[in-house]
Structures are given as C-alpha cells and as structure tokens.
C-alpha cells in the first residue's frame, strides 16, 4: 500500500458539502447599488448621459458581483458567476445592434414598399421625383444569379464528385485545399478579376473594341464566389452517402460513373440543393462585383449579355449615395426586399436540410 502523506486537499474542506450561497436578494442589491452609484457618479460630475450610466453600472455590477461572491462563496464560485454574467451580457450587447438593424430595416423599408416600387424602374426619375422603383434591379438580380447558378452547379458538382469519388493522393488534396482557399476570395477581387479578364480583355472583341459591361459579367464574378461554396457543401453531402450503397451497386457490376449519377447523387440531392440555395443567397447579396462589371443602370434591361444592368444590392448602394431626398426611402425598400429574398432562400435551405436530417 502506498504511504499516506498529507492529502493535497485539506480533509475538512473535502468533508463539508454545505456552502454559503449568495441569495438572489443580494444579487438584486448589487445591481441596484451599481445603477445608483453609476447614476450618481455620472450625473454629479456631468460627464455623460444615460448610455454611460448603463455601461458604468454594468461594470460596477460585475465588480460588485465578483467581490461579494468571493467573500461569501469563494474564488471559484465568484469566477464562475462573473464569467456567466459576462457571457450573458455579451449576448445582450450583441443583440442590441442586431435588433436595431432589423427594426430600422422594417420601419424604413415599409415606407416605399408599394406597387410602383416593384413595377417601375429608375428610368427618367429625377432628383425631385418621389416615385421610381427597383423593377430593373430585381430583373438584374434574378438574371445574374440565375446564370451564375447555371454555370456553377454543374461545375461545382463535377468538381466535388472528382474530389470525393475519383481524386486520389496529392492532386485531389491540392484541389480541396484550393477550394477552401477560394472560399476566402473577397468579392471585390472576384469583381476585379472579371473586370480585368472579361470586360477589358475579352469583351472588346465582341463589342466593337469597347469594353462591354453586362449582367453576364456579373454572373461570372458571382460564379467565382459561388463555386467554392457549392463544391464544399456537395463534397460534404457526398461523403455522407454510406459506402455500402456504392459497394452494393459496384457488386452488381454497375460502372462507377453510373453508380455516382444514379445512386450517389440522388441520395445526396437534398443536401446538395441546400448548399446551392445557401450559395445563391450569398451571391444575391453581393454588391461590389456587380458595381465593377455590370455598371448599374436606371433602365430595365432584360438582356444580360449587352449593356449595363443593375441589381438589388447595387440599387441599395446607389440610392444610398444619391442626393435626392427620396432616395433613402427607395434604398431601404430595396434593402428590405433584398433581405427578404436572401432570408427566404436561407430559411428554405435550412428547413430542407433539417427535414432531411430527421428523415434519415
């Protein structure tokens, strides 16, 4: 048997289960005292207003809580309580601006959210005209995002299939790595890339030597942004397909490519759709690339391959920078429309993912 030297934890500490607790009343007391002291300090010295009182009171409450808890319950409980209070206040602190964003968006956005807004463009709308709308921008967003989706989905699926099903060794790993890296390419860089490559180098050949800004160019830039998202999510979904499904198919003599197209892809389809929808939602909200390569425009332009096009996000940006006193209302209405579009896509995607998860 090992010899018993003095145990590292004092036995009497070990044998006592009861501990003194800070009663709820004490917590309330500390809170009230913190507010009182903060208010007194701030208003007596005249160094600030209500916001400062709140901030100071919060600080005093934390200090007071730690001190009181240390004295009554000991250091460990004090630390536990203070961190818990900090974590809760972080939550509240972050909630305030986010609620403010949602509130201003709703209250300002509703003002111009009318028929005219959805059915007219900004063509011939001057600084003194209160009407005008985002029809052209909505058309632009839908076309640009739609084309980008058509480009990205097949490419992204094929890339993910390669990485998961065919890729071996370093090359597949390299692709994986670069897909991840590509996720982090700033949207403005994607825009500049398409500007340098498509607008300035390729399009002059198709456009009598002048650079041709177009909605299609915006689609290309959005594709660069969507591709990694789609590859990543598809990859994850393909990996979730159980191996026995594939093996069962191989064992029947079905070739690999058919197994992939007929067994693996359909099984993973709901998850893949979710990923695609999230990528679309993100692309729909991008402003910078559209600004650089589609140029914006006030009139309705259904042709994505020729002439400037706008988009909802770009419309928000341009109206926000417009000096007209009616512009802010239009900007907010467009912002609300955009957020609604993006959120509907996101929520639908998440619900699909969730239903799918429960289905398994």
């Amino acid at each position, binding site marked *: 048997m090992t010899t018993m030297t003095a145990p590292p934890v004092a036995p009497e500490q070990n044998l006592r289960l009861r501990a003194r607790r800070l009663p709820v009343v004490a917590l309330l007391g500390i809170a009230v005292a913190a507010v009182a002291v903060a208010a007194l300090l701030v208003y007596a010295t005249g160094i*600030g207003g209500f916001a*400062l009182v709140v901030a100071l009171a919060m600080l005093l409450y934390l200090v007071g809580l730690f001190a009181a808890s240390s004295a009554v319950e000991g250091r*460990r*409980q004090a630390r*536990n309580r203070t961190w*818990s209070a900090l*974590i*809760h206040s*972080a*939550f509240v602190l*972050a909630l305030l601006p986010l609620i403010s964003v949602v509130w*201003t968006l709703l209250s*300002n956005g509703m003002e111009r959210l009318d028929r005219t807004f959805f059915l007219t463009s900004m063509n011939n709308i001057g600084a003194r005209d209160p009407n005008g709308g985002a029809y052209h921008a909505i058309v632009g967003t839908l076309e640009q995002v739609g084309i980008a989706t*058509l480009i990205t989905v*097949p490419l992204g*699926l*094929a*890339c993910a*299939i*390669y990485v998961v*099903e*065919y890729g071996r060794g370093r090359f597949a790993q390299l*692709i994986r790595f*670069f*897909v991840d*890296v*590509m996720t*982090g390419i*700033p949207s*403005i*860089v994607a825009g*500049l*890339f398409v*500007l*340098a*490559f498509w607008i300035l*180098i390729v399009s002059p050949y198709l456009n009598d030597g002048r650079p041709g800004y177009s909605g299609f160019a915006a689609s290309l830039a959005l*594709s660069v942004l969507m*591709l990694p998202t789609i590859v990543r999510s598809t990859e994850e979904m393909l990996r979730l397909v159980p191996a026995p499904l594939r093996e069962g198919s191989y064992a029947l*003599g079905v*070739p690999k*490519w*058919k197994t992939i197209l007929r067994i693996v*892809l359909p099984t993973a389809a709901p998850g893949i759709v979710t990923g695609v929808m999230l990528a679309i*939602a993100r692309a729909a*909200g991008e*402003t910078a690339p559209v600004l*650089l390569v589609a140029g914006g425009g006030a009139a309705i332009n259904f042709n994505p391959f020729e002439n400037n096009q706008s988009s909802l*996000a770009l419309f*928000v*940006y341009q109206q*926000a*920078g417009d000096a007209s006193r009616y512009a*802010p209302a239009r900007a907010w209405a467009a*912002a609300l429309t*955009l957020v609604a579009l*993006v*959120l509907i896509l*996101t929520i639908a995607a*998440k619900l699909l993912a969730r239903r799918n998860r429960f289905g398994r």
Partner: protein
Amino acid sequence: MGDTPDRSANAGTGGPRVTLGHSRSAGAALSVDVPVTPLDRTPDGVGSQDSDLGPGGTGLGGGGALPRRRAFGAERIFHGFTMAAGMTVLGIIVAIAIFLVAKAVPALDANTANFFTYEGWSPNETEPKFGIGALAFGTVLTSLLALLMAVPVALGIALYLSHYAPRRVGTALGFLVDLLAAVPSVVFGLWGRDYFYGPVRDVSAWLNTYFGWLPIFGGDGPFGRSVLLGSLVLAIMVLPIITSLSREVFLQTPTANEEAALALGATKWEMIRMAVLPYGRPGIIGATMLGLGRALGETIALAMTLGIVSKISFNLIENGGNTVAANIANAFGEANDIGRGALIASGLVLFSITLIVNMTARAIIYRRREFTETAA
C-alpha cells in the same frame, strides 16, 4: 440506345476545353446544359451497350473472355470531365493572379510615386501618383479593430448558445444567428451610415472630450465617419459568422470530456475552461481567421461608413479612414485606364493578403482535424 456515350462525349469535350487557355467562362457557359444531361438522362441508357456492365453478349454470368477495359469508355470520359472541373478551381485561382498582374503592370509602370510607400491615391492625373501604403494600413487597422471587438463577444454568444441557454432557446437563436450571417453587407452599410452614425459620433465626441490626450481619440473633429464607425459596423457584420462557427465547434465538444470535468467537481466555467475551450481552440482560431478574411475583403459596408481619406493615421474617431476594397468601390466610377489599372493593382495586394490569411486559417483547421481524429 447509344444515347449515353454520345452525350458523355459532349461532356468530355466540354472538359478539356475548360482547361485549355482558360477560356473557361465561355466554355463553362456553353457547356451549361451539357454536363446536366447525363445526370437526368442516363437512366434511359443504363446497361445499354456498355461493356463495363458485364460480359455483354454472353448472357448473365456467362463464360467467355473477360471484356477488355475500353480506352474511351463512358467511365473515362466522366472521370475526365470531373477532373477537368476540379482543375478549373486551380485554373481560376491562377487566372485571378495572372489577369490582375497583367492589368496592374501598365498602371504600375506609369506610376510616378512609390507604390508601396506613397500615401495618396491620384492615379487619374497626367502624372499618376498612387500608393498602397495608407490603404493597406487602413484595411489592416479596421479589420483588426473589428475582430478585437467581435471575437470576445462572439465567443460569449457562442458559449451562451451552446452551454448556457436552454437547449431550445439555444437552437432557435443559433438558427437566427445563421440567418443574420446571411444578411448582405450593403444592408449593414446602409444601417451604419444612416442610424449608427449618430451614436458613434456622440460617443466619439465624448471620448475626445475626456480621452483626447490619447492620440487615438485626439483631433478636433468632425467626428463620426471614422475608423471607429467602420470597424464597429464590420464587427457587427462578422459577429454572426464567428458566432455561428464557434458555436458549432463548442457543440461538438465530447460529452465525455465535459462530464469528466464536472465529475471532478468543476464549476460550469471551470468545465468550459478544461473541456470546451481547449477542444475548440483550433476551431476558434480558424473561425477568427475566416472572420478576418471576411473583414479584410469587405467593400460596400466600409465604402458607406468610412470617411475615405487616404492617409496613415491612428486616429480612430475623426472623419477619415479608407481600405483597399472601399477605395476600389469609391474610386472606380471616375477611374480612367491608368486609374482602373491602379485599382486592380491594389486588388492584387488585397488578394495576396487574404490568400495568406486564408491559407493560414486552413492550415490551422486541417491540423485540428488530424488532432481530433487521433484524440477520438
């Protein structure tokens, strides 16, 4: 009958074109429908005349020589097509670098100032002068400030959602956080410019009155459209992203480790310190780096909230501040040829910075993956 090879052959030719000379966008646009077809249509062609399927003519399981592997079977073509798609990703990254460089070089040649040290941005003059110094400084300053404010709060919220809130509340709010992460940046920019500007201006004035002796809060105004406003808006934007990622990591902490800590008599906070945070650390670092990548590249929200003054200054509250991305959005409208080239050059710098940040983040996350695999 005979459908399948035909279509796949199309898809196959779409593939190589993709890799050749990076006329990728055109190629990709043309092949839009092509790769989709095999997905939808193959069922008709199943088992048709594919010798891969089995010894075709000899009947099921019949004898005879095993069929040879075809050099140009559907399998090869499909494989080739997916590989080409994979290479497109590499191609795009390389193409971004090449085309940005190609368009930046003429402007850099025309530049009469030192690109790396000059603080101003006037590339449209007859004697173009522009430098990345102030912009890069502003980008890094704004992003780091934003992270400094966002990360602790984000971790707090993530912990609240994963370990403090009742499970249902945590799930519901976690969903809400994911939604907020999807709100476009232009909306945050609009909000920051129209509504957040007021409070920030007042706080700035207050800071200036009482802490004006600190250089970062000095100056004589006007205040508001400042680095402080920009980085606060940025912080609010990256908050949901970092929260969402770290919440996921925290939720993945093995229950066994949490229970081990609790069974040793740990308080909740001690349990988080012992089990949750160490386990999640690589994930937190990765999330932070991704947030940083997002912040560095953020364009519109900053173009709408910063004062757009290209000058290296640590002052946080006076009107001013600029970043590479915001400058591109703001200066693009009036840019001439050299001006566009100059903006592209600045974009190249931004691309390099984000590339480095992202690669670092990925390296950390990969390490974590190995680490958790060995630990499990």
